């Protein structure tokens, strides 16, 4: 069954490649089959050296390629793919992270014996759980340099973003009707802004330069007397670019505009200080900092006070801004994750930087025509987004089945359109389609990175051999000068 899926994927290539097949100058696919078989036969075989350790043999076996033979018409005959023996190596830290054992250890008592509702004022179950929740709140606050009273627990960064943007906009909607954001924000921010646009607000979407950074002059010019909120994310989830948050905060403070930042990918990984960066509202996500899924936090500044209209009404918990029973195990988990992050931040950053340098240098030296998307300087090292030219993106993702990576962000991976973040960077559609995001985290090892590089090298080479575009590039033809459509 997997063979048919691979076949379907190969035949659903973008239309411009299909257009090539009509040109007589290009060789038909079947004659390329011999070269494919040569590759699959030769480089894939593991060593028959018996002195290899068990581990090395397994890794070598895992690197073995798909063995495929093609018929005269180019249809794949018998795809005897070696079944992936085991779980793929996890390199997708931006979509989610594993729960740290220390965090799980802190959470379990609240699923087993300490099951009280933290809002129960009348008995010991409630008091004990409330104490734990407040301790967790203090930990999260300490991680970002805030006061515990300024932290509100939500169900995740998406809810925090919604609450911040819609809450502030609706509270001040009598006099202020303008919001500023960027084109590379997370979908939940863009969708909240679109929803507000439908309710009579005006939104300015600031462009980014080709490195992914926002222009401060553009921001200054976009601020109007009726601007209520500026929302710019700290670390982009797709390309890892870090925006100049401190300068943006200063500009917003000068013009008396509220500054919201989606710091889901930044908190716990780079030092964040809400005072230094002049942040008024900040979204934090639990499952990006090695905590449980289903919990997040919103930082709401108290001095000077930021007023919000709550999007969830009820019993008035969380300062009236987010009603509902707090999920004590998740809250405690988030607190424990914050504490671990505070302790490990320096070590994690060093570890991830080392792995990132290794990954980037190895890929750039061993695979030609690769582009790193986003600024090489202003970035979080754990997020590496490469575009492989002359390779079909979906095929590469399917081929890299032994490594769990993502192309574009998890939220948009269901649709086939290229990532809007890459489009905002000015990346061509074909390069945007072949972008792969490697996510490195606390638990990633050097061996996993080496394995990924080796696998990418082999599959990129294999896919390029099959691509007529690659042939033309090798011959020195400039692809931009080709007329794809026939004119009569």
């Amino acid at each position, binding site marked *: 069954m997997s063979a048919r899926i691979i076949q379907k994927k190969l035949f659903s290539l973008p239309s411009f490649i299909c257009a090539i097949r009509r040109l007589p100058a290009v060789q038909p696919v079947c004659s390329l089959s011999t070269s494919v078989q040569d590759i699959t036969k030769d480089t894939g075989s593991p060593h028959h050296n018996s002195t290899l350790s*068990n581990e090395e043999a397994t890794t070598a076996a895992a690197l073995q390629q798909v063995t495929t033979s093609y018929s005269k018409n180019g249809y794949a005959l018998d795809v005897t793919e070696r079944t992936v023996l085991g779980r793929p190596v996890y390199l997708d830290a931006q979509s989610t992270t594993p729960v740290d*054992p220390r965090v799980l250890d802190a959470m379990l008592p609240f699923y087993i014996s300490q099951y009280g509702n933290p809002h129960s004022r009348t008995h010991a179950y409630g008091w004990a759980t409330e104490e734990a929740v407040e301790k967790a709140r203090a930990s999260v606050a300490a991680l970002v340099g805030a006061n515990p009273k300024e932290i509100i627990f939500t169900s995740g960064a998406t809810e925090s973003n919604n609450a911040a943007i819609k809450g502030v906009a609706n509270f001040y909607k009598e006099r202020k009707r303008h919001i500023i954001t960027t084109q590379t924000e997370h979908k939940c921010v863009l969708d909240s802004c679109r929803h507000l646009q439908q309710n009579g607000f005006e939104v300015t979407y600031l462009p980014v330069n080709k490195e992914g950074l926002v222009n401060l002059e553009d921001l200054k010019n976009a601020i109007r007397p009726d601007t209520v909120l500026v929302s710019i994310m700290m670390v982009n989830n797709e390309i890892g670019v870090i925006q100049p948050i401190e300068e943006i905060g200063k500009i917003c403070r000068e013009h008396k505009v509220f500054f919201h930042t989606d710091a889901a990918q930044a908190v716990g990984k780079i030092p964040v200080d809400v005072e230094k960066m002049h942040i008024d509202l900040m979204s934090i996500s639990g499952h990006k900092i090695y905590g449980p899924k289903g919990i997040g936090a919103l930082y709401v500044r108290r001095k000077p006070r930021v007023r919000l209209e709550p999007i969830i009404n009820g019993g008035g918990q969380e300062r009236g801004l987010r009603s509902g029973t707090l999920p004590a195990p998740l809250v405690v988990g988030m607190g424990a994750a914050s504490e671990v992050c505070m302790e490990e931040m320096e070590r994690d950053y060093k570890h991830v930087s080392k792995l990132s340098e290794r990954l980037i240098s190895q890929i750039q030296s061993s695979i030609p025509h690769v582009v790193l998307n986003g600024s090489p300087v202003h970035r979080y090292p754990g997020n590496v987004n490469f575009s492989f030219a002359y390779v079909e993106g979906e095929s590469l993702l399917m081929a890299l089945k032994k490594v769990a990576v993502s192309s574009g962000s998890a939220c948009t991976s269901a649709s086939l359109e290229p990532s809007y973040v890459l489009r905002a960077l000015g990346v061509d559609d074909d390069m945007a389609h072949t972008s792969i995001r490697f996510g490195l985290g606390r638990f990633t090892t050097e061996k996993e990175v080496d*394995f990924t590089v080796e696998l990418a090298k082999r599959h990129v080479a294999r896919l390029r051999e099959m691509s007529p575009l690659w042939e033309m590039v090798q011959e020195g033809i400039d692809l931009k000068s080709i007329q794809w459509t026939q004119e009569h």
Partner: protein
Amino acid sequence: MSRSEVLRLYRKMLKYSSMFSDYNFREYSLARVKESFRENRLVGLQKGICLLTRNRFLEDKEAITKAIEKAQKNLEMLQRQAQISQMYKGERLVIEAETPSKK
């Protein structure tokens, strides 16, 4: 605490770290335990070379006991989590050996 007791604690922590069934947690835990004991060995060294002023001696002792208590707590956490990891085993990763003990 004497040097041999600290070493015993270290070996125990390494033993439980290697019991994690998940490759990533296992590698991380081993590396992290080794790193923190290596960093903290200077705490013990200070005790050895410190001058005989009473205060200095007490300070060092406090730092050592604090570090050891922290390690003790982490050991208990490792024991629990390693057991849980064994109870809820996932599949092996593609790069892990079939039988990790054989070499």
